[in-house]
């Protein structure tokens, strides 16, 4: 439970941080809240000779909501996601999901940037970001670029981000859609056995838009276009939910672990999707 030796860097600006990453290449990695990275280092599953701490970089902090667009700095903690009233009004699903991450101690340290950049299929924020159709800003030696959350994840711990890039912000549209984040977990502090993020809008008694994304049911988060499509134009009644669930299950590829065998994962996914749809519909 003791990590290998490392050098510690604490740059004051984003350019300095990038310079350090460029200098050390593979031998450097940024650290945000450290609550995914440090356990990996202690287990010696990650060896990081140069640790670049982002906490002094002011430009990575803060939540702003302007013209219907939400902008969250990468270093905003999960705790802030819960306590920020503006965010709770603009995207209430953020608070609902953040409250289901780990425990308060972890949330005081863990950041949204770390959670989405990590690439761990167990993290809750990536699926949520896909549901919200968020865009990530990556800043590298060649400047900034935006990548859609729905295009960002390639495999477990593999993302679109280049080694020399830092995620600086996350943005998405404020929304009044009905929402729900349903997560089954074994206990407080546990990653999801299965979780579903659902956002949908209503036109009269008909569903006019729907986005559904799933957590920890494949080696990446799963934005299930089919599941969303199955709801649009329906009354989100039992038949529609059944069709959406079927489409969602088609898109996942869960694996067996201590949370249960594959058949159970499918079952849990079914429950989370259907419950999230029902709850989001009731709020739409």
């Amino acid at each position: 439970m003791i990590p290998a030796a490392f050098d510690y860097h604490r740059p004051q600006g984003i350019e300095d941080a990038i310079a350090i990453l460029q200098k050390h290449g593979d031998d450097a990695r940024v650290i945000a809240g450290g609550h995914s990275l440090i356990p990996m280092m202690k287990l010696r599953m990650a060896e990081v000779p140069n640790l670049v701490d982002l906490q002094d970089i002011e430009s990575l902090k803060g939540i702003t909501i302007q013209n219907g667009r939400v902008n969250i700095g990468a270093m905003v903690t999960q705790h802030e996601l819960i306590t920020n009233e503006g965010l709770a009004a603009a995207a209430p699903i953020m608070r609902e999901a953040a409250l289901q991450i780990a425990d308060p101690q972890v949330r005081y340290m863990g950041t949204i940037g770390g959670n989405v950049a990590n690439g761990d299929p167990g993290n809750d924020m990536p699926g949520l970001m896909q549901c919200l159709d968020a865009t990530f800003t990556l800043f590298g030696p060649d400047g900034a670029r935006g990548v859609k959350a729905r295009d960002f994840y390639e495999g477990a711990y593999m993302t679109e981000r280049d080694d020399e890039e830092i995620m600086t912000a996350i943005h998405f549209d404020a929304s009044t859609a009905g929402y729900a984040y349903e997560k089954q977990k074994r206990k407080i502090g546990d990653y999801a056995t299965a979780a579903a993020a659902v956002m949908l809008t209503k036109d009269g008694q008909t569903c006019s838009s729907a986005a559904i994304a799933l957590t920890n049911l494949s080696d990446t988060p799963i934005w299930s276009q089919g599941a969303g499509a199955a709801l649009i134009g329906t009354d989100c009644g039992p038949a529609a939910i059944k069709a959406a669930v079927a489409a969602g299950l088609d898109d996942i590829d869960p694996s067996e672990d201590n949370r249960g065998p594959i058949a159970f994962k499918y079952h849990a996914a079914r429950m989370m999707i259907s419950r999230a749809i029902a709850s989001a519909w009731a709020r739409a």
Partner: protein
Amino acid sequence: MNDLSPDRAERSAKLKGLGHSRKRVEDQRFTQGRGNYVDDIKMPDMLFGDFVRSPYAHARVKSINIDKAMALPGVIAVLTAKDLEPLSLHWMPTLAGDKQMVLADGKVLFQGQEVAFVIAEDRYINADAIELVEVEYEELPVITDPFKALEPDAVVLREDLAGQTSGAHGERKHHNHIFLWEAGDKEATEQVVETADVVAEEMVYYHRTHPCPLETCGCVASMDKVTGKLTLWGTFQAPHVVRTVASLLSGIEEHNIRVVSPDIGGGFGNKVGVYPGYVCSIVASIVTGKPVKWIEDRMDNLMATAFARDYWMKGKIAATKDGKITGLHCEVTADHGAFDACADPTKFPAGFMNICTGSYDIPVAYLGVDGVYTNKAPGGVAYRCSFRVTEAAYFIERMIEVLAIELNMDAAELRAKNFIRKDQFPYTSAMGWEYDSGDYHTAWDKALTAVGYDVLRAEQAERVEAFKRGETRKLIGIGLSHFTEIVGAGPVKNCDILGMGMFDSCEIRIHPTGSAIARLGTISQGQGHATTFAQILASEIGLPADSITVEEGDTDTAPYGLGTYGSRSTPVAGAAAAMAGRKIRAKAQMIAAYLLEVHDGDLEWDIDRFVVKGAPEQFKTMAEIAYASYNQAIPGVEPGLEAVSYYDPPNMTYPFGAYICVMEIDVDTGTHEIRQFYALDDCGTRINPMIIEGQVHGGLTEALAIAMGQEIAYDEIGNVKTGTLMDFFIPTAWETPTYTTDFTETPSPHHPIGAKGVGESPNVGGVPAFSNAVHDAFRPFGLRQAHMPHDHWRIWKIGNDLGLHDDV
């Protein structure tokens, strides 16, 4: 002198003796971070030791190359079995009469086994050095299933035992077999089972789990080469036994060894045994001449130090048509892992598993336990229990439920029909135990009334109908448990550990100004001994509990005792405290008689003083007597006021209780919610009701963990799948339900103050209550037995197997 105020009630209250909910005196330092745990011990020049552990569950060790590790600056030495062999310390005896490798001798037998011991200047260097030790392994076939281990062509696990057809506990019938231990009357039981009206048969598995104390195991060994004295601080539940074992192993005379248990952050049986870390630290300190510290991390603790349970219990319970039990037959296949390192009294290799007739009057019974080697970590300790009582209680409380199903009878009624009646105590069970006292029917009725049992059953039945109509996906389970424990080991005539009789001890010194220090052979790991033992003494000697210091754990000062586990502290050391207190009082009476110029016999004891019979204004308080004992020349009486008592209990004590758990189960997700948990405990005389309640809450929470998710699981090749707290379930406040505690009070007739012990009851009785609730919820759909832990997917599987889901 003749002032009679304060009155008796006030004087009694001031003592804070028996029955007083005195606040725990320990908590001041614990809640302010001022405890002193073994890892808080820091000494000049102290070195650190840590293990290279086996990644394989079964492999030959072809070679160990330490060159790269030794080249790392700050590394002092790397010990392997070869280094320990000349000292005959590469193996060590276990408490169960087996032996265990200290460091891998030719092969490894479980994942996490100690292979080499690295000694370095600090922990960081140590962690790097461990990675530099190069071990070449050749993998061997792995056995993690005790039934497969006993197949004729199973690979030989313990090559060191080749050709040995008998072990410490008799015949070995197979190369992976350890012992067969039997109790009761096999023939008579089999006959009853064959001819009974009704027989319920079931395999009940109590899965492998782990005590997982908050503080892991560790020690600091310091050999002083000048004085020749070895001091060993560590997480020891039995410091005197450790001293004796250390002396026998090392050849150092026992007076030159001092073993100290500082504050211990939970033990639960995990800290009873002797571990390779202790042996290696001692050797390392002798070799280097410096103090050496070894502290496990969480993964080490979960992977390598003592596990608990892992009992496959095959039961047959026979009864008449109307539900009177006529016989009980139990055959256990016990997975002991790679070495038999159970911590049981020597003559009881399966502990007190033969208490498995439980609270019931069962005329004949048989128990046979086969101990088996597998490629899993050694242990088999009593996790908050008295030597397999948890397994026994779970077994019988499951068998009763299965019998109720077989008879189509209410399980509460079936229990009541078979309880040992109050007038049958002292009661000798079919296995030969003499239950000291009990009143099961009263406790049971009180419990059923408290929860509103009949109303609950009606609600449950309605819910089942609603479920069948598709109106709900939640079921209600009513989990019943009536347990009887056997604790307080134990009478020296049949209980010993490595030949040491399981008595315990207390020594009291009264100071001139009316305060006192008491030292005992036990050691608190959170039970609150400093609080409760002072209360026992306050009532015995009439000095306020607040004026009595209780000290334990230092073998240089405490009298010899067998330590704390198996709920033995109050039954045995608590009794020693009372008896030592009575010796103090006897001498005090002589002193008081002298001071009051009357005969001893003219005095009577009254709370905190001796009073001349018939003349209440004529008295001497204990404080006055204490002073006199130091400053008066009393003819025929030695100065001072001290006493020591070594107490050999005449019998065990038999606490019991009635627990009821009401659980809502979501059939779709396999999640549960505990709506109500009622726990009635009868632990005899109640010393401190608040501490009892705290112990019950803690024990129930551990029981919840075990029943609902906690396990040590292995894959087929022997990898531990549950090596961190992400996967090994420890409930937080969030998962922990609200408990309602209650009591009846049936004193033990043979214990000086009638106390029986309570710390382990909630674990023993709680697990069957939680598990029975799960079973009970599915009983209307045909469930008989589903193995623990009842985590989400396993509950889902119950529903799935019963066809309660529509997605399959």
